[in-house]
């Protein structure tokens, strides 16, 4: 174990080396470059190795944070990765995309007086080190049980279930609608924030462990859940995400140039339109771009537009800065890259030319009124404050809904009134025997780590079912 530092003075928190803003806003390479081994060790030594670590309480899957950090401090980087894998199947991903400031790091005791330990950076470091050097041992696969599990969807929750159950000796097949696995990690989150080679390597590991992946399979269309049972599957996990875009139903929304974030990001990331015409799928390269919304999705769209050569990119949001739900790091990076935030502003309608192409957006100024149900102050329109923002590309990023394609084809799975699958919070069991569900399809769009946490709980419950019964 690491010696506790007796002195009051804390070493400063590690600074992540990054590509400079005016360089990176023109390329799709990853923005933060990663800590060096020396930097990681120094940062790890800042951790007080608390007996009752508050940080762990902030982590939805209770990663043994002091445990993995101690190993980094000792220079045992592979040991740190193995420690992470005990609770988290995708540490290289979570180290990059978890909202650490409101989870683990937000709880870190050091954050009370100064800067919290950079837990996310360290998690990323250990996972990257193990992946790049290929030195950490793969988990041992238990003896085959002869049971077959179908996992529907290959996002973080599906991947977690597949990984857990293959190791426990079950046969696992993932059914994925797209031609590539990874869910939002490949079609939504851009390369500059999460390199696709990392996701591919995680998927590769699952295949090495014996997971079978059937891409191009839309469950509900290509095959139904009942047919999977007829084919001999003993249990089914549904992790199909919250894939349906929400539009705002404003006049002019079907003009050419108004996109859902899903379409804009899928074209760019999954179909690699940023490399058009080397790749065949095009994406509009807007000159003056407006992004509606202020979550991670909106920041990804805005930063993508900048990289595709926009002259101006504006994020238009109806509340104020304090309510913007994106990760702090994304907001910071976006601003550094030259993206303007137009706050307390709401779109009213879109204007186009005779060819049906977008030319501008009318919006309205808002002010904050009384707090609403969510405790956030409700934005109220300021009368007569209409004005027009000229633009040729609008990306609507105001949330997502569950896709009814699978659930329509499976009427015996109960849904709540928003169309999300009803699943037991502790086990992930749905109302249909032998079927579990977790991740965004149950909770609505949340986070990678919550989707993985739900996957892990369901995997445990599925294992119990396969060995003990429903």
């Amino acid at each position, binding site marked *: 174990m690491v010696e506790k530092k007796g002195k009051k003075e804390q070493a400063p928190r590690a600074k992540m080396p990054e590509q400079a803003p005016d360089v990176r806003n023109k390329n799709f390479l990853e923005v933060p470059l990663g800590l060096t081994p020396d930097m990681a060790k120094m940062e790890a030594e800042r951790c007080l190795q608390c007996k009752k670590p508050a940080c762990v309480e902030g982590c939805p899957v209770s990663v043994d944070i002091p445990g993995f950090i101690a190993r980094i401090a000792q220079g045992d980087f592979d040991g740190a990765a193995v420690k992470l894998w005990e609770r988290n199947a995708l540490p290289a991903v979570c180290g990059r995309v978890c909202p650490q400031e409101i989870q683990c790091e937000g709880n870190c005791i050091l954050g009370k007086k100064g800067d919290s330990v950079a837990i996310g950076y360290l998690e990323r470091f250990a996972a990257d080190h193990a992946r790049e050097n290929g030195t950490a041992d793969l988990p041992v696969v238990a003896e085959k049980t002869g049971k077959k599990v179908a996992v529907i969807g290959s996002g973080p929750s599906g991947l977690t279930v597949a990984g857990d159950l293959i190791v426990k000796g079950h046969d696992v097949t993932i059914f994925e*609608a*797209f*031609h590539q696995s990874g869910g939002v990690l490949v079609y939504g989150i851009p390369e500059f924030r999460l390199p696709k080679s990392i996701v591919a390597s995680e998927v590769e590991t699952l295949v090495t462990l014996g997971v079978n992946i059937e*891409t*191009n*399979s*839309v469950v509900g*269309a*290509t*095959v139904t859940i009942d047919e999977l049972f007829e084919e001999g599957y003993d249990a089914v996990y549904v992790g199909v995400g919250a*894939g*349906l*875009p929400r*539009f705002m*139903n404003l006049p002019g*929304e*079907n003009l*050419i140039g108004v*996109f*859902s974030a*899903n*379409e804009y990001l*899928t*074209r760019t990331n999954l*179909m*690699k339109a940023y490399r*058009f*015409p*080397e*790749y*065949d*799928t*095009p994406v*509009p390269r807007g000159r003056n771009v407006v992004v509606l919304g202020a979550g991670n999705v909106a920041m990804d769209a805005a930063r993508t537009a900048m990289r595709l050569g926009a002259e101006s990119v504006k994020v238009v949001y109806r509340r104020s800065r304090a309510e913007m739900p994106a990760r702090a790091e994304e907001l910071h990076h976006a601003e550094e890259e030259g993206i303007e935030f137009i706050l307390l502003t709401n779109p009213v309608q879109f204007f186009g030319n005779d*060819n*049906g192409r977008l030319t501008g957006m009318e919006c309205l100024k808002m002010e904050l009124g009384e707090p609403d149900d969510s405790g956030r102050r409700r934005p109220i329109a300021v009368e007569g404050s209409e004005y027009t923002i000229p633009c040729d590309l609008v990306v609507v990023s105001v949330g997502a809904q569950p*896709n*009814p*394609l699978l659930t329509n084809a499976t009427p015996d799975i109960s849904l709540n009134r928003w169309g999300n699958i009803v699943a037991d919070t502790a086990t992930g069991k749905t109302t249909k025997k032998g079927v579990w569900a977790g991740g965004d399809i149950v909770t609505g769009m949340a986070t990678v780590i919550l989707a993985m946490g739900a996957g892990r709980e369901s995997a445990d419950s599925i294992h119990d079912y396969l060995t003990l019964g429903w």
Partner: protein
Amino acid sequence: MFKIVNREKMAQGTIVLNEIDAPRIARKAKPGQFVILQANEKGERIPLTMADVDSEKGTITIIYMIVGKSTRIFGNLQVGESYYAVIGPLGKATHIENRGKVVCVGGGTGIAVLHPITRGLKQAGNEVITILGSRNKDLLILEDKMAKVSDTLHICTDDGSRGHHGFVTDVLKDVLEKEDIGLVVAIGPVPMMKFVSMITRDKGIETLVSLNPIMVDGTGMCGGCRVSVGGETKFACVDGPEFDGHAVDYDELSKRLTAYQEDEKISMDACQAV
């Protein structure tokens, strides 16, 4: 996977037929449904309707016109080669029932889409009057197959090289004068569907059209395929592709189809340069 087991050229090589090994899809596909295909990993996702399905053999058949880079790459694939991805069956199946007398109007490759629907309508006991149109006699496809599933078949060509000299709408007007029609199905270029729908709207005859907006996923997750129907936004890939012809905003659809014109040209030029 997705191996091409049969390939034919039609309409002087401008249209190509592929029969593809896709057992899971073949087991489930119904008339009116489509698939999305990718020729290779770098390729675009292209929606094409299934013109035929052989569930026993486990194959599906697509018939497509070579109009741009992707369909050109498709057209070059030979028997024994494979598509990288084929996804489906997507979209809603045609609702087929006995409506008495029906008219099926097809233009261009729309005829390929129309064929399984016409066959279904015939099998359901309808008297089927079919009207097919093309620019000239050499571009007309599937005439024999359509004849087999129709009680009456009319051919129209823009240049008069075969059948009626003029548009399908001329013949349609004639038929509607003389017969009591329960349903019209029109599948082809957007202007054709628009004019057919204008004629049948005046007469109050229910009309089904199949729309072909630009798509990405085909499962409802992108909204790229939005069309306005009866003043409401619909996603053609999951709510359609068939809609009430009288309610569709064809002008919006025509405009949206031009969204990538410049990029399509860049793609095609780059492809021709190789």
